C-alpha cells in the first residue's frame, strides 16, 4: 500500500475546484502562473498558492524556460491515490466476504 501521507496530500490537492481546474489546464500543455491566472478567474497570488499545494502533492513540477517558469503535470501520484482506493477497497471486500461466511456459520 502506498504511503498514507502522500496519498493524503493528493486527495487534499484534488479537494479544491480551482486546483482541479489548474490540473485540467495543465493536461493540455505546460503553462506559467501568469497564463493560468488569465485563464482561471483567481488572482496570480492565489494561483501560486494552488500550484504550491499541487507541487507538494507531487502533481506539478516547475520547469524553467528562459525567463519564464512553466508548470507541467506530473500525474503519477494520481495513479497512486487511485491504487490506494483499489487496495483498501479490495481488503474490505475480502474481509466482509469472510464476515458474512463467518456469521452464516
Amino acid at each position, binding site marked *: 500500500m502506498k504511503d*498514507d501521507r502522500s496519498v*493524503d496530500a493528493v486527495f487534499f490537492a484534488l479537494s479544491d475546484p480551482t486546483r482541479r481546474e489548474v490540473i485540467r489546464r495543465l493536461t493540455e500543455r505546460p503553462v506559467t502562473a501568469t497564463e493560468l491566472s488569465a485563464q482561471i478567474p483567481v488572482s496570480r497570488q492565489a494561483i501560486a498558492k494552488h500550484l504550491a499545494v499541487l507541487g507538494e502533492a507531487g502533481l506539478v513540477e516547475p520547469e524553467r524556460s528562459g525567463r519564464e517558469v512553466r508548470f507541467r503535470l506530473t500525474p503519477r501520484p494520481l495513479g497512486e491515490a487511485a491504487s490506494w482506493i483499489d487496495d483498501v477497497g479490495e*481488503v*474490505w471486500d475480502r474481509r*466482509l466476504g469472510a*464476515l*458474512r461466511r463467518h456469521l452464516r456459520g
Partner: protein
Amino acid sequence: MSPSTCSEAGVVDDRIVREVLLPADREEVWEAITRPDRLAEWFGGRVEVDPVPRGRIEHRAPDGSVRRGTVLSADRPLRMVFWWQACEEDDPGRGDGTRVEFVLLEDPEGTLLTVTETSSQGPLPSSLDAASSVAPPLLVAPR
C-alpha cells in the same frame, strides 16, 4: 474545505464505502466486529480492540504489518468509529491515519453493515467529539 466532500460531481472521493447484508442481528454483528476471538475469524490477522471511546485498537496483519489507533466513538450496537495508522514495531506511527466507521442498521433479513474508510484524516484528532460528530442522519434522532 473538506477533503472528503464528494461535491463537484464526485470528482474527488477519498472514501471507501462498502455495504454488506449480514444474516445476524445487530448484537451478534457487534460482537463479531469487537471481540478478538470473533474478529480473528474474518478480519485477517490479529485484532485487539477496546470498543469504548479512547479505547485502543491494534491490528497485526498476516504479512507482519501493524496498524494502531484509537476508538473515537462506540455506540453499541449501532456504530463504532476508530482512527488508525500504519506503525513499525515499537514506533508511535508514521504517516497520517485513516478513519474507519462501522454502522449497523436493522434489516428484515439481518443487519446491514456499512464500512467507510476515509483517507486525509491527518494525525489523531485532538477532540474525539469533533472527529466522531459526522453521524449518519438515521442515528441522530432527538432524544
